[in-house]
């Protein structure tokens, strides 16, 4: 979900300082330009991302709360690794970021590396 950013750069308010270096990250496949020299969480907020993940119990949207590594609300999937703290991650050019909409599941593969459906016997109804 990308909307009007809740946080904007100081410079934009004053129109003074030069443009900071940016990188392009992909948030749920949408390219976003974010400042290179700050955290991914700050960059996504400035790019207008308002929902970083869903709460696993109620499914309600969540976004960064503490920005200092303690609340774990900013968890996102970064380059296929789930549950990364966006506030402790530096954005990199081409980084693929996904909101964490479900609990990170276990993936099962056959000998040739093809993904198998989740075994229902172990985990109930597979998705």
């Amino acid at each position, binding site marked *: 979900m990308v909307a009007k950013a809740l946080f*904007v750069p100081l410079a934009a308010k004053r129109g003074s300082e030069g443009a900071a270096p940016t990188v392009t990250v992909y948030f749920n496949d949408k390219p976003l330009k974010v400042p290179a020299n700050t955290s991914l969480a700050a960059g996504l907020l400035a790019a207008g991302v308002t929902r970083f993940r869903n709460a696993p119990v109620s499914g309600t*949207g969540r976004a960064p*709360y*503490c920005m200092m590594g*303690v609340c*774990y*609300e900013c968890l996102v999937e970064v380059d296929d690794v789930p549950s990364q703290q966006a506030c402790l991650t530096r954005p990199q050019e081409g980084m693929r970021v996904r909101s964490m909409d479900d609990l990170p599941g276990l993936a099962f593969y056959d000998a040739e590396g093809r993904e198998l459906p989740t075994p229902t016997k172990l985990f109930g109804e597979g998705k």
Partner: protein
Amino acid sequence: MSKNVKSAELEYDLVVVGAGPAGMAAAVRASQNKLRTLLLDEQPEVGGQIYRNITSVDARREEILGPDYSHGRTLATEVIAEAGKGSLTYWSNASAWQIDPEKTLHVLRDGRSSMVKAKAIIVATGAMERPFPVPGWTLPGVMTAGAGQILLKNAGLVPSTPVVLAGCGPLLYLIAAQYLRAGVAIKAILDTTAGTDWKLALRHARDLLTGWSYVRKGMGMLRAIKDAKVPFYRGVKGLRLEGEDALQRVRFSSGGREHTLDASVCLLHQGVVPNTQISWSLRAEHKWDEVQLCWTPVIDDWCQLSVPGIYTAGDGASIGGALVAALQGELAALGVMRQLQVKPAADLDRDGATIRAEIERHLAIRPYLNRQYRPSDEYRIPADETTVCRCEEVTAGSIREQVKLGCSGPNQTKSFSRCGMGPCQGRMCGLTVTEVIAKESGLTPQEVGYYRIRPPIKSVTLGQLAQIDE
């Protein structure tokens, strides 16, 4: 596991965890005294949260943040200079995910975990915001005042719409003053205290005089807020944050009237508390502080925990602010030198006494601050409907029900409800759960206790675990 990936044995005299004021001061002092020291920190730059980005901040941001922020540059510069000279090693972007009482650390850095051995460890992990459980505090758009400050320090970001600041304590007024300097619109300040308690101030007159520099700063901030004519509500009760997918409204009562403000950003603050995750995971002894309303690790005169050779300094030990933290960092470094017998004990005792006297002077103001800005019961021990555990979405009412069923401590309610079992490992709910159980059961917080914190205290992937060198 292949033998040729085995890294060189990493051994230090001292490992300092956290590069805020306490950690920086400890590392510099130890390194200057020839201790082989490793300073590690989660962030890309030294400074901790209080001096975040101090080595790279631009002039405009620095002007907004003010001289107390700039003060951190001296220490940060010393760390960088010392790190270039050999006896100090500094690791940025490094998280300690396990520390054991035998002084072995497991550190995650650049996606790999390494094992580090130390003769002594100083835990300088600082403070975190006290949980502020109110209805709707999980909505996007609701953040801590500290988060607002970090966005300003680290990214030069400020709210795009008029912001509501709610709670109590000096940091709330500080961010208000900084936002005003930055030209940010403040919708309102909702003060959850009743306003300045003059009787209390009189009783602490002598402390206020000793800590006059702090008082003057505080008065300056309040004056800036008043001059800017920011709507200011006192004695705020029944605070609720409402919205569909994100914050839309802030509701509260003040002066016997109900108020509703439209807002999409609200920053909450009711003081900071020690981040004790590491000291708990070490099974160190902790005491419930009845005045600061939080756990503090038990330390000796040299900041040593009940676990020999492991020290804690700064706000992670007890809230005292940045200047006290730096002094305590030095004190802990002296304690390590004493332990390792690298200097005559008499010299260290003399230096230690000087530092302790200075710490006393800085702490003079604290008893007043702790009472004036004591977070009210309503926002520490919330009503049944309020979510206490953000991760697993457990309400205060559910904790109370479990107490009625016989649960007498946080580890039992955790087993019953998963409260405290999510990714934050109880950091955001621990204090609340202890106090809710205590109030409900008639026990003291000390008797109720805290979560049994177990490593890994930061998330580690199975792949990273598998890559650990032997």
